[in-house]
């Protein structure tokens, strides 16, 4: 008797869950407003990528053309495929001490796998991910970028 009721309960529970599924897809079908497709080339003007999108590695600069990179080289060490090259220089600062600063932060976009280790390990949060994703170029040398802007200096208070 027990297995008999089990059999019918199985049928009705199964039917109920099937109708639940049908309800979900039916709702989507009759509500075109839920469409998530981006009509990409047509909407490039107002296309906004989501915050976590990893388009490219950038070095944010403030309005005084200052960045936070100390030139420590941790990103270069952590990069698994050598996409980052740090060229540092030594200057004498106001206190008369020698200081290591960044000369060029070279980023090879063509080799980058967007793993995010450089951004994650940077001790001074100098690196970030940009939202730009249209990287196609006709010459691959254009994929090698210098992240610190010319004439930029390190931000005050970043060690």
């Amino acid at each position, binding site marked *: 008797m027990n297995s008999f009721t089990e059999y019918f309960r199985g*049928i009705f529970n199964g039917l109920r869950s099937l109708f639940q599924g*049908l309800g*979900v*897809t039916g709702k989507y079908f009759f509500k075109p407003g839920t*469409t998530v*497709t981006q*009509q990409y080339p047509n909407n490039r003007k107002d296309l906004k990528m989501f915050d976590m999108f990893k388009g490219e590695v950038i070095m944010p600069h403030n309005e005084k053309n200052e960045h936070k990179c100390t030139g420590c080289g941790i990103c270069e060490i952590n990069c698994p495929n050598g996409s980052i090259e740090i060229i540092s220089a030594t200057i004498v600062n106001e206190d008369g001490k020698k200081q290591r600063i960044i000369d060029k932060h070279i980023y090879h976009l063509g080799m980058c796998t967007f793993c995010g280790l450089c951004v994650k390990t940077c001790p001074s949060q100098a690196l970030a991910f940009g939202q730009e994703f249209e990287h196609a170029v006709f010459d691959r040398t254009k994929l090698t970028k210098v992240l610190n802007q010319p004439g930029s200096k390190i931000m005050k208070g970043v060690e």
Partner: protein
Amino acid sequence: MEFSLYDFSSFTAWIDSSLRASMSPGWAVAVEMILIGIAILIFYALVGLFLVYAERKVCALMQNRLGPNRVGPGGVFQTIADLVKLLFVELVPIKNADRVLFNVAPFIVIIASFMAIGAIPFAKGLQAIDLNIGVFYLMAISSMGVIGVLLAGWASNNKYSLIGAMRSGAQIVSYELSVGLALVTMVVLAGTMQLSEIIEGQRWGWFIFKGHIPAVIAFVIYIIAGTAETNRGPFDLAEAESELTAGYHTEYSGIKFAFFFLAEYMNMFIVAAIAATVFFGGWMPFHVYGWDGFNAVMDFIPPFVWFIAKTFGIVFLMMWLKWTFPRLRIDQLLTLEWKYLLPINIFNLLLMAFLVLTGLHW
């Protein structure tokens, strides 16, 4: 000549008499056959193209996508572009394949569905052949397609094809029973197997209303088993992409693949057309006994439109099922058939016979 959208029998009779007037009866029959063949072929191609487009749009909307929208307005010419591409694809010869069977298989599949379409009544008088065992003929012909599937799998000399074909064989042999018994249930109610008389019997109420609960159960079982018989999802183990690349048509390319593809969609149309004919009155408009004004309004809509609307309604239902449910495993598939559908179906047949014998139906 008298042409009417509501009754094609005078139109076909006019073609017949004018042909017989100009040639011997044997030639007249031959010319008629060719005309019907061409008409059905054109219909077949148009419906196939439309169904592929409809499927892509329906599944896109159900998955919150847009679907094809580049070729033509709303992407309507997408399937035509696909067809043109398929026509130009190279037919790859397979090493160690059984050449004859490999080439014959797609034709068997497509001829099986082509023959089934001949017996389907599209409108009053618009039916290629009205057999007195119409339902039986349709069941017999629609199960022919599996021979083509098995041949394709065997002749391809490919393990994925063979596994796919064997799964398809097990599936169709099992679910054929359910399709048959569900239709037999309705034949018990109709009292005839002739499709034109089945439709005539639904003048004052479609069988799904006349037959009460057993008819509804039979319809649900028919839709489940019919979806399985056409090898469509959630019963598409025969071509389970994730396991078998494409199942029995892995090795096919170009127009031969297009034949399998087209036959799948036409089988869906045929299953839906049979369901529309047997459960929803085919081309018969919706009538309520005694409401003469309402009936006149319903009669104003041509029967062809009724038939197509019902059929595509059921096709939409099948697409809805396909794009909602995940694929069954082979043991789940056989459990569903042998432990659930078949016992329920046999009990349902008894219930229907009881209903008819006691006169509880209308």
